């Protein structure tokens, strides 16, 4: 008896634990059952010297509303969904500057801006559309990036699903029904963790050396000419900052120049009397921090052997005018020679090259061009760019609108021709002579398809430096390419320190739920209650008779009468 009772108890206890486990499992089941899930990209969150900027939050759980909301509505718990096509820039800027409370912002970008978009770029009215939106997008980006926004801001691409949802939201808004907990509508949910600081963001500089050959009997150190370009970007949405023009075009041009000169230098007979140093630097948007750290590591001897440096910045979308920016006075011998060389090649190509001189202010920490960093380290340098004026901090560093459609590989090819030809003529001493070294159709011709395919790669790789890890495959690919073209490659990894601090969480999934209101459920409860009551009465009448139904209600009162 005792043992069987104990056995029973054990069985019961194990059953209890099984039942408890089932309850726990069942309570935890929460499937993703959204109407749709959309990839969204968050606005950047960063601090400059402790001042918080960008969007400070990542998780979102509010109702959606479009721009047609009724005036005077309380938007502190709604997410405004704004397609860029219908952007009211003044409204958004005012909202941000007045720091009015908002649940969140969701911007919808036209599909053409997506770098995963495989459509061709030849459509002319798409180009026109792009131009229209590009300027408003640039302005929007600037205002977003330089403001402190206490709510999440996300970017998403339009597609059929999203457009249908937006149309629905607009319809609801126009009918005056503001979406809240009691009136149904759409709910946008992004479940993301609290964004954390990126502990030690790294910047990686890659240098490649092409060694020249000394003349017989020459004991001096060979002079060096450097060609430098920064390859990283900064934009409103770091997961979308591909920076095809700023500065993908510069990096690709550098690779092409390296390829051409490696062909020349591979044969000892055509090796020049100069060393060539190719530098792919990082940290460009942050006052060329990477370049600064790189140059800091040079000792006096190395500094003296570098004659001058040519920096390439944004050479992908120009038509017939380029600018050479300098900070040393144009009477400087190297600069004079370089400019004359490039002007003569420009004449042959039928383009114009202008010279712009901007003195640097040592007390101002802002470094607008890469050559200014060289000047601060007492080296001569010039920047070749399609821009005629310097950009401000974090401007024109590869934002949302800087995609593949805005660079032209022919522009890059012509810039490569300019630089390579003038450099080669200087190295081999053919200035003033009518010789075209990199002639079209020759084995040294500039290869537009090489440029095109590298531009394609760069246009699909977001390259914001703090989010590139130490051994990022893209950085390694750049290193490998440079290794193919040069004799020696050195990678230098530094920590990006100084004014800038970055936060993670750049990409998330947005779940869109279509929710019914509480009033709907209350109504449903009412209907169901009355249905069940009607069913009950019907069954009682049918099976027991009408008298029984009436007696059900009368019995308590008759009892009361009895007891009284």
């Amino acid at each position, binding site marked *: 008896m005792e043992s069987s009772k104990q056995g029973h108890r054990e069985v019961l206890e194990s059953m209890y634990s099984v039942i408890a486990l089932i309850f726990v499992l069942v309570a935890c089941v929460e499937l993703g*059952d959204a109407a749709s899930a959309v990839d969204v990209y968050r606005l950047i969150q960063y601090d400059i010297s402790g001042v918080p900027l960008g969007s400070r939050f990542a998780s979102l759980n509010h109702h959606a509303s479009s721009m047609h909301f009724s005036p005077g509505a309380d938007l502190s718990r709604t997410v405004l969904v704004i397609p860029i096509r219908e952007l009211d820039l003044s409204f958004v800027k005012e909202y941000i500057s007045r720091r009015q409370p908002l649940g969140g912002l969701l911007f919808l970008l036209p599909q053409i801006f997506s770098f995963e978009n495989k459509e061709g770029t030849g459509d002319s009215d798409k180009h026109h559309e792009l131009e229209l939106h590009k300027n408003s997008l640039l302005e929007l980006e600037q205002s977003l990036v330089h403001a402190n926004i206490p709510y999440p801001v996300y970017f998403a691409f339009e597609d059929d699903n999203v457009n249908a949802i937006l149309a629905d939201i607009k319809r609801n808004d126009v009918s005056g029904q503001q979406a809240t907990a009691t009136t149904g509508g759409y709910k946008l949910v992004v479940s993301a963790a609290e964004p954390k600081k990126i502990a030690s963001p790294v910047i990686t500089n890659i240098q490649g050396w092409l060694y020249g050959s000394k003349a017989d009997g020459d004991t001096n150190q060979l002079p060096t000419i450097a060609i430098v370009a920064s390859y990283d970007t900064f934009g409103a949405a770091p997961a979308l900052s591909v920076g095809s023009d700023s500065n993908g075009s510069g990096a690709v041009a550098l690779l092409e120049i390296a390829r051409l000169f490696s062909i020349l230098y591979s044969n000892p007979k055509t090796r020049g009397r100069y060393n060539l140093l190719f530098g792919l630097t990082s940290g460009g948007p942050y006052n060329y921090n990477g370049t600064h750290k790189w140059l800091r590591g040079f000792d006096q001897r190395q500094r003296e052997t570098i004659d001058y440096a040519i920096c390439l910045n944004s050479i992908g979308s120009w038509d017939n005018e380029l600018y050479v920016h300098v900070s040393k006075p144009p009477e400087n011998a190297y600069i004079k020679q370089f400019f004359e060389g490039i002007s003569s090649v420009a004449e042959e190509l039928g383009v114009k090259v202008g010279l712009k001189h901007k003195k640097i202010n040592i007390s101002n920490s802002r470094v607008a061009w890469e050559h200014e960093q060289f000047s601060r380290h007492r080296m001569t340098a010039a920047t070749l760019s399609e821009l005629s004026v310097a950009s401000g901090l974090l401007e024109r560093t590869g934002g949302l609108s800087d995609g593949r459609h805005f660079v032209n590989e022919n522009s890059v090819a012509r810039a490569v021709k300019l630089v390579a030809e003038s450099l080669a003529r200087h190295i081999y001493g053919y200035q003033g002579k009518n010789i075209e070294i990199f002639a079209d159709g020759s084995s040294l011709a500039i290869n537009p398809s090489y440029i095109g395919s590298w531009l394609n790669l760069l246009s699909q790789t977001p390259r914001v430096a703090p989010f590139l890890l130490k051994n990022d495959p893209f950085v390694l690919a750049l290193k490998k390419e440079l290794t193919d073209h040069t004799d020696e490659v050195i990678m230098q990894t530094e920590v990006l320190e100084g004014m800038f601090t970055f936060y993670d969480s750049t990409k998330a999934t947005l779940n869109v739920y279509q929710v019914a209101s509480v009033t709907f459920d209350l109504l449903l409860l009412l209907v169901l209650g009355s249905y069940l009551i009607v069913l009950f009465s019907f069954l009682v009448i049918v099976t027991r008779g009408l008298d029984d139904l009436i007696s059900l209600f009368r019995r308590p009162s008759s009892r009361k009468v009895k007891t009284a």
Partner: protein
Amino acid sequence: MTVFHFFNCAILTFGPHAVYYSATPLSEYDTLGTSIKAALVYLGTALVKLVCLATFLNVSENDNFDPSQELLKALIGFIDVAGLYFALTQLTHRNISQNHKFQAIGLGWAFADSVLHRLAPLWVGARGLEFTWDFILQGIEANANLVFSISLAALGSLMWLRKNKPKTLIPIIYACAGIVATMPSITSYLRRSLGWHFPKVVGFELFTSLMMAIISWQLFSACQRPSST
């Protein structure tokens, strides 16, 4: 608010069973035991059906109506009828009249069906944020199913438990029983081959269940008249 919705849909799906039990004389005669036994028989039947389906049916990739597969499914559906036969005739019940026996068994059968087929989707789906009409339609379907089960149980008790039936009514009884038993095949045919949407199918089920209920009620009372005198 979504647990609220789950609560609403649960009331719609399972409420009528409780209401039926308390409203009709079933509660007075305490036939709960019979209902529970019927529910357990349904469980066993469902398991047997599962095994047969898994063994004999090919899984088709597309959602088309395949006559041979559907015929097989209908045949396996007759296991349902066999289970009901078992519940009606073989189980020993307390001394309750014919009238209440089939009702209790039909109720238990329908309740087990609802719990097995509808509770899990309801728990997992209705608690989410996303709102669909599916769960309300599912509840309505559960109601229709209740009526179907009770009609089937009535016809079953007529077929197997009543010995003296008017000769003319026998074919009608068997025909109605056949229709009710093949109802799942008919609905799947409508859904797949004709492409009816869920609300339309549920409406059809509701309508036919009411028709069947009226017909079986008439048949039952017609068969009851000779013996009640």
